[in-house]
């Protein structure tokens, strides 16, 4: 069997090698692009620096002679007399700056005399002049101070009462590694994707377009063999592109084309580069698998590129985590796909290599590669992908089609809400918040219902049923009990591996704070309680339950709900809240308890926890958990009484549509 894979691989390679343009586009171009781009950038930068070095600045100085004298020895400054309207002259670019000093530097009262530098940041020359004058004036202040000190009988200068000598022990390799580590990991991830995209489009979508894929699948070998052969070729090509690009980048650094000119980057450590090459191998497997699988879903080259582009642009974002040294390679981050290799390459270039962690990165990447490859192999053995037709229209009126339509509607709702809501809130915060909750979100929900709905009574889909009073009481108890565990438990736990930046939540509350409590309560508690519930627990939970299991509906609708909160730090808590609320709807068969829960929870966060009125203590913990459990019991018993203990929900007429 391996011999057959061999001949498949040889066939693919021969085809690629014969395609000169693809080789130029995917291998040669990227390698040339870096040197060209970076040399151009650095030469432009150097030129404009030189220009600044030669610039002569026109400066007017008025006031105390000490200041004028202190500036007199500045080179490349042309001192001009003050024009009639100095501010206008500066704005017009006839004068770079005006140093306005008081007539005497003798202090009057508490305030020190003020020397002003008038300038204009929109004019490059004025900005450069201001920088130089700042420095010169600071030196002048020191000199005036020393002169007074010496006049009063002091000795020497005050400035060197203590001298701070800094000794940088970083070796050349380490400095170069730190400099390269900012950019190389990210660029490496990007070039891997570009290389894999070029080859995988040709090898699957291209074959489909040329009509040769069907010919190939007539051959008497298992389809997995063909899939595997194609994967190996894309993998290999990706490794080659990655390595060549790495070499090109290393060369750029060594020859000084890339990186900070003041840092000697000619000494990138070979060990770090070697490690990068080693890590390219498993990462290339992940990347090749993703690109190959997506490309297999397309019917022709054009479609493939269209599908690959957004995925590619979004997938390289994790690589940016390595652009600083703050995010460490840890047993947790070593498991993240793509980001782990970027972080490891950064550390390798720095010369910090921990073998166990590197091993973990390698193993994790191999694992991800394996998972992705299996997915790819599955796609490549489906008959619809081989023949290039879709066996079923994307949004057919079948369970699968409805599911896809619902998922698309959910994604579109999240995106559109982010977009339109953001726009409205930028315009006017409070009104925008109100409009996005009361107008935008309901409209999106209604559109989703129209697009993905499959009939059935609206009240059934949205769970608009009168709840039992017990259920309402239970929801209130749950809402009151969940705050402490969520804030002091989940958020804190999350903080240990995903620390929040400081003042993350602060600014939002600050801006809303002026609104007054009743309005705040309406906007932050009542409106989300009604509108967000109607859309996420009403429309999406309702639609998703009709096309899949209750469990997946709860999970997916909660994920959508968490995503509209638009922050990686708020995802976990809002996801958990979503689960609780979806659970309430499923158990009580009514959306009203979850609306009540949402409103009460938001209000309690705003009035109690947000104000810092509650501190974590055994008492608050115990009380919260007790209240929460009481809520759970109440909601359960309300469910039991309405005869729906199991929570599996099947409105009449929809049962037959569910996949067996």
């Amino acid at each position, binding site marked *: 069997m391996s011999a057959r894979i061999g001949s498949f691989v040889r066939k693919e390679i021969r085809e690629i090698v014969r395609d000169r343009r693809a080789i130029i586009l995917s291998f040669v171009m990227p390698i040339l692009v870096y040197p060209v781009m970076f040399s151009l950038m650095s030469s432009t930068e150097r030129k404009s620096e030189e220009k600044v070095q030669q610039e002569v600045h026109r400066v007017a100085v008025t006031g105390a002679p000490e200041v004028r004298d202190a500036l007199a020895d500045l080179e490349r400054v042309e001192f001009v007399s003050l024009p009639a309207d100095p501010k206008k002259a500066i704005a017009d670019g006839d004068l770079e700056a005006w140093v306005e000093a008081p007539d005497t530097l003798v202090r009057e009262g508490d305030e020190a005399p003020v020397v002003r530098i008038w300038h204009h940041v929109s004019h490059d020359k004025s900005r450069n002049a201001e920088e130089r004058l700042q420095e010169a004036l600071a030196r002048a202040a020191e000199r005036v101070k020393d002169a007074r000190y010496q006049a009063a009988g002091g000795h020497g200068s005050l400035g060197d009462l203590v001298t701070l000598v800094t000794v940088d022990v970083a070796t050349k390799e380490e400095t170069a590694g730190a400099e390269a580590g900012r950019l190389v990991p990210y660029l490496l991830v990007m070039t891997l994707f570009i290389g894999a995209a070029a080859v995988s489009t040709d090898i699957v979508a291209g074959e489909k377009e040329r*009509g*040769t894929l069907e*010919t190939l*699948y*007539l051959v*008497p070998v298992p389809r997995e063999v063909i899939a595997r052969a194609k994967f190996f070729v894309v993998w290999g090509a990706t490794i080659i592109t990655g390595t060549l690009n790495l070499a090109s980048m290393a060369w750029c650094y060594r020859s000084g084309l890339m990186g900070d000119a003041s840092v000697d980057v000619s000494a990138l450590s070979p060990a770090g580069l070697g490690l990068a090459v080693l890590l390219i191998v498993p990462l290339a497997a992940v990347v090749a698998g993703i690109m190959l699988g997506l490309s297999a879903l397309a019917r022709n080259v054009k479609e493939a590129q269209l599908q690959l582009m957004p995925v590619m642009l979004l997938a390289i974002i994790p690589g940016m985590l390595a652009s600083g040294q703050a995010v460490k390679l840890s047993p947790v981050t070593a498991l993240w796909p793509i980001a782990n290799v970027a972080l490891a390459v950064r550390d390798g270039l720095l010369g910090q290599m921990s073998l166990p962690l590197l091993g973990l990165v390698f193993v994790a990447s191999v694992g991800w590669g394996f998972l992705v490859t299996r997915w790819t192999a599955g796609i490549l053995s489906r008959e619809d992908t081989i*023949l290039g037709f879709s066996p079923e229209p994307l949004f*057919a009126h079948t369970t699968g089609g409805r599911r896809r339509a619902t998922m698309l509607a959910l994604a579109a709702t999240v995106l559109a809400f982010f977009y339109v809501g953001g726009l409205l809130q930028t315009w006017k915060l409070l009104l925008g918040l109100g409009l996005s909750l009361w107008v935008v979100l309901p409209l999106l929900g209604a559109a989703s219902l129209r697009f993905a709905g499959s009939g059935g009574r609206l009240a059934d889909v949205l769970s608009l049923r009168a709840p039992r009073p017990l259920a309402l009481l239970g929801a209130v108890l749950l809402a009151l009990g969940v705050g402490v565990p969520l804030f002091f438990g989940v958020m804190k736990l999350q903080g240990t591996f995903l620390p929040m930046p400081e003042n993350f939540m602060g600014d939002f509350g600050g801006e809303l704070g002026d609104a007054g409590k009743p309005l705040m309560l309406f906007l932050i508690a009542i409106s989300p309680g009604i509108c967000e519930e109607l859309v996420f627990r009403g429309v999406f939970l309702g639609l998703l339950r009709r096309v899949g299991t209750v469990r997946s509906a709860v999970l997916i609708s909660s994920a959508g709900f968490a995503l509209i909160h638009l922050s990686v730090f708020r995802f976990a808590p809002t996801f958990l809240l979503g689960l609780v609320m979806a659970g309430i709807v499923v158990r009580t068969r009514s959306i009203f308890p979850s609306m009540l829960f949402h409103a009460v929870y938001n209000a309690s966060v705003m009035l109690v926890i947000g104000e810092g009125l509650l501190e974590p203590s055994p008492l608050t913990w115990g009380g919260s958990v007790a209240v929460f459990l009481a809520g759970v019991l109440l909601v359960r018993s309300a469910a039991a009484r309405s005869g729906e203990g199991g929570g599996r929900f099947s409105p009449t007429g929809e049962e037959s549509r569910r996949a067996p």
Partner: protein
Amino acid sequence: MTERIRVQDLAKTFLGAKGEEIRAVNGVSFACREGEVFGLLGLNGAGKTTTLRMLSTVLTPTAGTALVNGHDIASDPQAVRESIGFLSGTTGLYPRLTAEETLRFFGEFHGLEGDRLNSAVERVLETFGIAKYRTQRCEKLSTGMKQKVNIGRAVVHDPPVLILDEPTSGLDVLAAATTLEFVESCRAEGKCVLFSTHIMSEVERLCDRVAIIHEGSVRASGTMAELRERTGQKYPEEVFRAVVGNVE
């Protein structure tokens, strides 16, 4: 004579835009023997291509079974593919590979190696008169030459069963003639040829027996003479029309 292909109630269903089921093939049955050219006649969209793709195991049937050279298409697709040569308008050639490389790779894919591979490739190159063009890339070949390479590609492993799906569509007279001569030579070699077409002259010239397929099911089958007798029509076109009814 041994039976090479036996098709029993084969069916294939796709889903339409509204989720409705579209029965492309709806319970087709027929059988072909060795040394026989069996014609599958039908209009465009009658289900011929889907049937043949199921027999070549590129598609899996929704219902029914078929044996090709004694192998079940559902349970042993690989053995099926080993014993067939498949050619259709949509089985393309790799433009950037040369004629010889194409034959060589497909020989290898079928498990031929060493001397057996060499002699198989040489035999095909010679039989189809493409030896002169062996080093030319397929994209540079004329339509006729391409067709010859494509036929060669399908038979390089000397399969006992040939499945040809409208092999002459889009070809010029000479290339089409090459194809038809090839079918005749196959019959002479005792191979079983399953051949789909909607060109009646080809049917007259080649087919020992035919099945007329319409809207996914076989409407009539037998030798041409039998069908003439049954319908009372003289010309094949008339026979065909009588079998499928007046479809416009």
